[in-house]
């Protein structure tokens, strides 16, 4: 066990051991155990539980819906993140910090309230609800509502990741490209995008994890109609409350697996971004 010198005075060994033991114990009980339990419960009767759980057409419909919602909300928020970070990081204008605050709002609004404000807008008592209903278009208790609230709760992920990264990288390379005769889109695709690729992927992965797993907001607008408007997390809830606990854990383990994969990718990307920063510092030396 050693401590890097730049981190000051080394603590006595007994302090180190005590704190490390507390750390490992706390993380093991509070973070690792719940995840372990999911897989333990799901695999209690072996893979049989999965076979039974996946025979249910509602399970497949939930998987489909979750993938559909993710496939819409992630790209949409990625495009927004790219546009917002270009406008905010590459230009100076008044009101920038206000705009940054507004983009962060969805993080400050709790999931249930996020869902609820969409009900107020599109529900039958809502602003647009009656009109849309007259046209035969249903938003609340239907797929469009689920997509909308998922977009809302995952709104800031990509932008939040890209804005600081692009601000840090500055405008020099883009100005050089423009002075060499590159068009705007050429500058973006050949110069900016390669420089932000890891940060972009990082944001997309976080956005994706949240989009797949969102529960509170979606449960408000979906109505949990089995086989129709239940996403995977809602399907888990339905199974669990219906006392089909093994199946609930089997489906939950699928989501947990996605979570673990996200974590692994995220760790790898953090390492990548750190490496890129180091290179950047080297080039600017």
């Amino acid at each position: 066990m050693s401590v890097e010198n730049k981190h000051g005075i080394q603590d006595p060994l007994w302090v180190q051991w005590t704190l490390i033991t507390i750390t490992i114990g706390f993380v093991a009980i509070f973070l690792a155990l719940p995840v372990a339990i999911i897989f333990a419960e799901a695999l209690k009767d072996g893979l049989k539980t999965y076979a039974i759980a996946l025979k249910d057409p509602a399970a497949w419909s939930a998987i489909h819906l979750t993938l559909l919602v993710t496939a819409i909300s992630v790209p949409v928020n990625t495009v927004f993140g790219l546009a917002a970070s270009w406008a905010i990081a590459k230009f100076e204008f008044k009101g920038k910090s206000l705009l940054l605050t507004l983009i962060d709002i969805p993080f400050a609004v709790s999931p249930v309230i996020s869902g609820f404000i969409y009900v107020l807008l599109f529900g039958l008592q809502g602003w647009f609800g009656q009109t849309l209903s007259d046209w035969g278009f249903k938003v609340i208790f239907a797929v469009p509502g689920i997509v909308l609230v998922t977009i809302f709760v995952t709104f800031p992920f990509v932008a939040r990741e890209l804005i600081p990264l692009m601000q840090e990288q500055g405008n020099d390379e883009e100005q050089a490209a423009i002075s060499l005769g590159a068009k705007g889109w050429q500058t973006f695709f050949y110069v900016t995008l390669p420089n932000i690729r890891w940060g972009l992927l990082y944001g997309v992965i976080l956005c994706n994890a949240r989009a797949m797993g969102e529960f509170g907001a979606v449960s408000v607008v979906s109505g949990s109609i089995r086989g129709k408007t239940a996403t995977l997390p809602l399907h888990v809830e339905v199974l669990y409350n219906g006392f089909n606990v093994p199946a609930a854990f089997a489906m939950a383990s699928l989501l947990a697996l996605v979570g673990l994969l996200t974590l692994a990718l995220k760790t790898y990307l953090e390492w990548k971004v750190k490496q890129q920063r180091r290179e950047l510092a080297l080039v600017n030396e």
Partner: protein
Amino acid sequence: MGIEVQHIYKSFNNYNALQDVSLKVNDGELIALLGPSGSGKTTLLRIIAGLEVPDLCEESKILFHGKDVAKQRVAERQVGFVFQHYALFKHMSVFENIAFGLKVRPRATRPSKAEIQHRVNELLRLIQLDGFGNRLPSQLSGGQRQRVALARALAIAPKVLLLDEPFGALDAKVRQGLRAWLRRLHEELHMTTILVTHDQEEALEVADKIVVMNQAKIEQVGAPEEVFHRPANEFVMDFLGHVNVFHGRVENGRARLTDIGSKLTWNREAFGNAVYVRPHELEIDRVAGDDGIRGTVRRINLAGTCAKVVVASSSGNEVVAEISFERFHELGLQRGETVFVSAKRARVFTPDYEI
């Protein structure tokens, strides 16, 4: 191609970066914009490039070869701009960096692959980096990166070359080499070149002509020897080398020094009653002459090509005199001794008046 700018103003928020600046650069000239940081030199360069727009003003003009380019965007002006921190594309190889300007051209004017290859190799030879084409910028030294940045700017066959503090981020030894190389390159290419620098030595050594800037204005324009030996005002004199300040007056064409003055911060309005003398223009004697000032030797520095002697007067203000080693040994000076300081040559600055 000749460049002319007329009556350029530029302000950022409430800060004036350029205040009615006009300048003409002849075809094939290498000129240096020299000044302290914040003097507006980089802003002027960026305005010429089209990376910045001047404040809207009817008299303002930016002429390239007599043609007004104020409305043109940076790409249309065909300038080669070299950035202070290189701004190389980090994820592209040296070859791709240099080829970039050719590859992004519309299909109609884009050279063929073979032509691009040929052109880039030619440029790699010019910057003495043949065989480095596949390296990434992170694998190059600072001096090599700066040369790649220059080659990248030259690849688009620009009409003018604009260099923003090109050697600012490099260490002294490398700067020296690159300076000489840039001068040779300019003699080879004869391209109109504007170089921004805060290093007076660099400007004096490389440029055909020096533009001294201070506080958003041009103080003096002239050949290196002209600005050095005949500075237009106190600022230019102080900026291009060390200068001593004396209290005194001019009588019958001679400077009568009364005391050593303290150095003030330069201020355009303060055309003073001060007398300015360069260190090598000072004389030190053991006996009082006609117009010498009495002082005490404070420090002696013999590391260099001459002896530097710091003398303080009774008022506590100091001057630096540079005398030859022969003279120094002849006098046999010691710290704490009393000496007399006089000027072989001195300047006073009143508008358009100098002795």
